C-alpha cells in the first residue's frame, strides 16, 4: 500500500541528483516524494513544484543522529540557493523519525533534526526569520513498513513552503 514504486524512484533521482547515497544504498531507499509529479515543462520557476522537483525537499538522517550528512549538504545548498533567488518564500522544516524509538524521545529527536536543518540553511545565508522548524517525532512517516529501508526514508528532514511561492 505504501510501497515505494518505480515511478517514485525516478523522482528520487531527479530530486536528489546530488545525493546519490540516499538513492543507491538500497533499491528500496528511494524517498517517496509527495504525490503525482507534473511534467517538467509545466513547472513554473519559483513555484512549490519547482522547489520540490528541481531542488529537492527531503534530506535523510542516520539512526539516532541529527547531524547533516554529506548527501544532505548538497540538497540544502540547492535549497539555500533557491531561497536566495525567491526571497519572499518562507519554509517550514520538519524533523521526522523512524518508529524505533519511544514517542516522547522521538519528538525530541525530531526537534533536533528540524533545528539542525534550519541552522544549516541559516549558515548558508538564509534569514532565520524565513524558517520555522517543527518536530513530528515518529507520528508522520512516509513509509509504513517495518524494515531498514522504510526506517531510513522516515528519518528525514522535510522542507515545505509555507508561504511566498508562485503557484
Amino acid at each position, binding site marked *: *500500500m*505504501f510501497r515505494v514504486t518505480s515511478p517514485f524512484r525516478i523522482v528520487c533521482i531527479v530530486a536528489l541528483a546530488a545525493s546519490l547515497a540516499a538513492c543507491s544504498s538500497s533499491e528500496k531507499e528511494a524517498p517517496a516524494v509527495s504525490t503525482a509529479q507534473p511534467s517538467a515543462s509545466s513547472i513554473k520557476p519559483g513555484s512549490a513544484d519547482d522547489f520540490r522537483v528541481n531542488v529537492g525537499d527531503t534530506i535523510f538522517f542516520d539512526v539516532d543522529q541529527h547531524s547533516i550528512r554529506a548527501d544532505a549538504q548538497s540538497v540544502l545548498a540547492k535549497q539555500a540557493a533557491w531561497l536566495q533567488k525567491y526571497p519572499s518564500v518562507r519554509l517550514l522544516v520538519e524533523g521526522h523519525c523512524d518508529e*524505533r524509538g*519511544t*514517542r516522547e*524521545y522521538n*519528538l525530541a529527536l525530531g*526537534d533536533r533534526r528540524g533545528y539542525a536543518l534550519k541552522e544549516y540553511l541559516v549558515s548558508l545565508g538564509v534569514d532565520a526569520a524565513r524558517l520555522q522548524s517543527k518536530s513530528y517525532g515518529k507520528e508522520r512517516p512516509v*513509509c*509504513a513498513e517495518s524494515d531498514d529501508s522504510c526506517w531510513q526514508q522516515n528519518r528525514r528532514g522535510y522542507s515545505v513552503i509555507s508561504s511566498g511561492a508562485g503557484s
Partner: protein
Amino acid sequence: MKSLHAMTRSVLGAMALALTMASTPAYAALQIKLDEGVIQPIPIAITDFTASSPRDQQTAAQVSAVVRGDLERSGLFLPLDSRSYIEKVSSFSAIPRFGDWRIIKAEGLVTGQATQLADGQLQVDFRLWDIFGEKQVVGMSFKTTPENWRRLGHLVADAIYERLTGEKGYFDTRVVFISESGPKIKRRYRLSIMDQDGANPSFLTSGDYIVLSPRFSPTMQAITYMSYERAIPSVFIFDLQTGQREVIGQYSGMTFAPRFAPDGNRVVFSYSRDNNIDVYVVDLRSRRPVRLTSDPGIDTSPSFAPDGSRIVYNSDRGGSPQLYVMGADGSGQQRISFGQGRYTTPVWSPRGDLIAFTRQSGQTFSIGVMRPDGQGERILTTSFADEGPTWSPNGRVILFTRTTAGRGNASGNSSVWSVDLTGQNLRKVLTPGEASDPAWSPLNR
C-alpha cells in the same frame, strides 16, 4: 461526548451489611497473597444479582457481569460458568447451601441485589461468602444515579479485591488514551477517555490535529497532553468538567511530555528552547516556568515521585537515552539505569517503590521496572514495540502501548495491553479501535 459530565458523579454511599448467623471458625481463610510468585486464580461463583422488582432484573444481571469481568481480568479470580451452578440463588437474604457450591469447586460466592430507590437512585447490595469457612466475608451496599450503574459493579469488584488481597482495588477507575485511525502515513489522533474495562468510551478532541501523551491530574478533573493544535506543538490542559482546553503558556519552542505533580498545581514537562531540550516545571496558578535541567542533551519524559520530592526523567547526556533521578528542584541529578540498551519513558509507581520504563535492546522493546536507586531491574514484557507504561493506582498493574510491525500492505497496529507487576496476566485491553498512550486515573473517590 455525553460522558464528559459523568465526572461529576454523585457521592456513592457505602455501608456494611451484617447478616445475623452463627459465626463458624474459619476453615480455610479465603484470601489472596499477591507477593507469592505465580498466582493460582481463586474459583469464584458470581451469581446474577437479584432485583426487588422485575424492571430492575436486567440491570441487576448487568451489574454482576461487570463484577465478573473485573475479577476475571485481574487474573486473581476464575469466575465459574453459571451453567454449573446447582443452587439457583433467588433471595439475597438467604444463607447459601455451601455444600452445593463445594461440589462445583467454588471457593468464593458472590450474591447481590439491585433496588431502585424511591429517590430514583440505584442501590446494589452484595455479599461475598467463604464456601469452605461457611461464612460471609464481606457485605456492603452502594448507591448512585442509575446511569452510573456500571460503577456499582466496579465498586463491588473493588470491595472483593480489597477484602481478599488486603490492597486497594483499581476497578472504579478510568483511562485516558489516544485513539488512532487511518493509515500510518496519515494517522488521525483523538484524545479519548474510557472506563478501565473499556466501557463508556468518548472522544475529547476532533481528530483535526495530532494529540499525544495524555495524563490525569491527581483529582481526575483535568488531563494534560501535547497537541499540534497551534503552530508550535504545545502542552495543553483539558478540563473534564467544562470540556475546555487551554495551552499552558506562550513558549517560543515545542513543549511536550507533560505530567502533573502530585499536588495537582504544577505540571512538569520538556521545553525546546534554543536547540536545547530541558525539563521545566510550571505552577498552573502563576504560569511561571522553572527550569530544572540545563545540560545540552535531550531531557524528557519527567515523572514525579508520589511524595513530590523527586523526579525521574530520561536523558541522552551520556550518549544514549538513560534514566536519571533528581530532586524536585533539579538538584542531585543522578543516572540510575545501567543495563543493556536504551531506557526511556520512566514513570514512578504510585506506591513509590518502583519506576516503570521502556527499554529498547536489539530489535525489541520491553516494559520493565526497577527501584528508584536503579537496582532490582525486572523485564515484564517484550515485543517488536512495547512502550509507555502507566500504573494502576494501587501499583499492581501496568498498561502500555504495543505496536506490531508493518509488513507489506499492512500497517503496524497499536493497542493497549495490560500486565501485572509480576509479569503475569498479559492481556489486550478493550478499546474502540486502535489506541496508544494509555494513562490510568487515580482512584475515583
